[in-house]
């Protein structure tokens, strides 16, 4: 007993930090934290000291220097006279493009394959199994390189389209050209103002809004696109109003007025009218000189990377979707069937809404994986962030530490943004507990 009273009444002793269970965990944590900070401090100090020995100083001034190299796929206007910062920005946009396109395609393919794997049709289910097993069990880099090799070796070169009896011809009424340098498709154009400021027709585009003057981060915002989006959103809102009115009528009278043509009309007609007023026409790709000119050029580096990343990630998404669906008890399906719902409606109204709660969290990881895997782009020469900032810029300026840190930071931010956005969506579909 004496020992118990001793410890309660006694004053604080240093050894209690380790032997008293009240303080022990805190002590261990503080020691671990100090150790961790020392380690970080040592790493930073070591880096700075070594760089100083090499006569290198850490600085980001090189980002303002002339880049001197060209980038083939440019979402913004760029030339070799621009700065390294702008080259990095173009690389970032290319990364974002492949990430967004890849996530969309992977989701669509993945959901379809995931559902088909559960099909009662033996052949369909087996084919999907083979697809999933093939893609997820081979490294994605091999798929990227294979896609590129197929595109290069199987499609004709632009020169095959030339001559009196060309060995290759364009598809869809001379609108689309498949070449081993990529796919050329028509591009939407708006009526232009000619040189004297006189409109060749009263129907013409509104033009662009230029931001940030001559700065590295300058960009043009197409007012035409803004107008189209605004019209589309307004149409959707009006359509929503019509739906709500129909709901009210149905609630009051029990009869639902037929509104589908109204609802389609308010969305489609204004957009079409606007496109006509803006003078929408399509620029066809044409073989001029060495290459096809005009139209939109989807480079085969982009297509190969997009295909491989989407199909690879879709295999994982398919498994996630299948798992999510299987997680819903068959009682739900049977109950829905007992109510007289058709199989397709059971899937869309009963199973999928519940399955989404299981699907979304692992799906976030797949989106993040796809985004990070896009850094394999250099294997096919797709100029993404890794190709510009961490590739050529690093090579030409010799700023390894800065470029790698900057690239890591940017990938971190992209991943956190995707993660954040998907978490918001997850919160909206997850089980609402009341």
């Amino acid at each position, binding site marked *: 007993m004496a020992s118990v009273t001793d410890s309660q009444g006694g004053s604080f002793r240093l050894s209690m930090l380790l032997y008293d269970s009240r303080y022990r965990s805190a002590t261990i944590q503080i020691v671990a934290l100090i150790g961790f900070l020392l380690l970080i401090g040592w790493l930073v100090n070591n880096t700075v000291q070594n760089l100083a*020995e090499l006569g290198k100083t850490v600085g980001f001034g090189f980002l303002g220097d002339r880049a001197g*190299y*060209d980038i083939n796929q440019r979402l913004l206007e760029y030339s070799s006279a621009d700065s390294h910062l702008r080259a990095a920005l173009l690389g970032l946009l290319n990364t974002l493009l492949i990430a967004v396109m890849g996530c969309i395609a992977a989701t669509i393919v993945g959901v379809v394959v995931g559902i088909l794997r559960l099909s009662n049709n033996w052949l369909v289910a087996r084919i999907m199994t083979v697809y999933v097993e093939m893609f997820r069990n081979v490294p994605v880099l091999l798929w990227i390189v294979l896609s590129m090799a197929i595109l290069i070796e199987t499609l004709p070169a632009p020169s095959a389209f030339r001559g009196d009896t060309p060995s290759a011809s364009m598809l869809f009424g001379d609108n689309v050209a498949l070449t*081993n340098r990529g796919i050329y498709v028509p591009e939407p154009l708006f009526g232009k103002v000619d040189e004297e400021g006189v409109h060749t027709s009263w129907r013409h585009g509104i033009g662009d809004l230029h931001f940030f003057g001559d700065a590295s981060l300058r960009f043009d915002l197409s007012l035409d696109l803004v107008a189209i989006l605004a019209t589309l959103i307004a149409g959707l809102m009006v359509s929503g109003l019509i739906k709500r009115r129909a709901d009210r009528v149905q609630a009051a009278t029990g009869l639902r007025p037929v509104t589908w043509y109204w609802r389609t009309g308010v969305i489609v007609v204004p957009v079409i009218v606007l496109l006509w007023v803006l003078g929408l026409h399509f620029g066809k790709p044409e073989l001029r*000189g*060495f290459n096809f000119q005009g139209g939109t050029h989807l480079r085969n580096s982009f297509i190969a990377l997009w295909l491989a990343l989407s199909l690879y990630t879709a295999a994982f998404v398919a498994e996630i979707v299948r798992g999510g669906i299987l997680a819903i008890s068959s009682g739900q399906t049977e109950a829905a069937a007992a109510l007289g719902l058709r199989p397709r409606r059971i899937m869309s109204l009963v199973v999928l809404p519940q399955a989404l709660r299981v699907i979304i969290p692992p799906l976030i990881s797949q989106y993040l994986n796809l985004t990070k895997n896009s850094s394999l782009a250099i294997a096919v020469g797709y100029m993404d962030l890794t*190709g510009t900032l961490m590739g050529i810029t690093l090579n030409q300026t010799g700023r390894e530490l800065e470029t790698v840190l900057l690239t890591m930071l940017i990938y971190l931010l992209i991943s956190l943004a995707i993660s954040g956005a998907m978490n918001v969506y997850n919160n909206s579909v997850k089980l609402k507990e009341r």
Partner: protein
Amino acid sequence: MQCTFSDGLIKKIERLDGFGTEICRISLGLKNQCETGFFLTPRVEFAQTIRMEGGPRSSYRYRQGSRIITPETGDIQEEVIMKKSVILGALTVAGVMAGAAQAATLDDVKARGSLKCGSNSGLTGFAAPNANGEWEGFDVAVCRAVAAAVLGDPQAAEFVPTTPKTRFTALASGEVDMLVRNTTWTLTRDVDLKFTFTGVNYYDGQGFMVPKALGVSSAKELDGATVCIQTGTTTELNLADYFRTNNMNYEPVPIETNAEAQQQYLAGACDVYTTDASGLAATRASFEAPSDHVILPEIISKEPLGPLVRHGDDEWGDIVRWTLNALVAAEEFGITSTNIEELAKGTDNPEINRILGTEGNMGELLGLDAEWAKRAIMAGGNYGEIFEKNIGESTPIGLARGLNAQWKDGGLQYAPPFR
């Protein structure tokens, strides 16, 4: 256990578990005695690998007999790891030299009995193994000439294949004694990377190759073309500048390796392949139908390619430099592999006599014997013979002498006088 080097620098040996190796701790205890570092030449018989921990920066691996260059400053502790038998065996260190007063590389090469050359990993005509596995080519011949001059045997040259990324590390770390690997002489490589270029054996420049079927005869007609290019090289910047100054557009296809570039070019995924003109010629020679491709006349950059050695060992640099000069001078004075025996008996031309060692003491000044240049020339012939045999117009590569002709013929190859 105590091990002693001749000047007692090694302090103690510790057992390293699990590796079967033993460790020597050497404390140099020297500070800032020279600008470039300390030079340590361990004469360690039978040593397999010697590793030096150069302070916090990095660790290097060295082979037996190589020179260890320590980091610039500080009181450094080195660890020399070697096989146990080595420790028990003869273990001597020639000494620690401040600066490069002694021709360490020459001594190392002589002690080893072979010359290690960093070479291209395979570029037809310049450096590539033939069907028998023997290295041959234009760059290889320079190395063989040096081996003949120093060791008396052209076959005493060993070739270490290097890539553009690894070549400088291989030379700086002492893995190779000299680098002959179509390397462009630039200020930063000379000054910042601490190398010494010992001359130019090939004056090159960036060129373009196109399929003949395109009907292009000048690079000025390439507006709108798709250009395959190895990414991360100076050629990328030259290309951008060239098209910009000529107000032309192009579509760059960045590619990681030369092999991949060939594949894309041959498949027609790009119209043009650009790299150094000599590289283009060598690449073309490896095609199935080389005559279907043409190298355009425009050369858009200066790429002087030459052998290089480490900065600071001037004696060794001199030997490489003057071996190359001897090859060039031999062509100028008409010394060939066929008439050299005749000329070596003595001629009326004192310059020829000095080159071939029948007059003067040129070899002695270089730390070699009198017949060093004679052996170098006999190894593969003079500069012109080497050129014709490996890359000249009679070979599949078919390069014209152009800038690489003798100065008397309007070229740039010009050997300083042997006097």
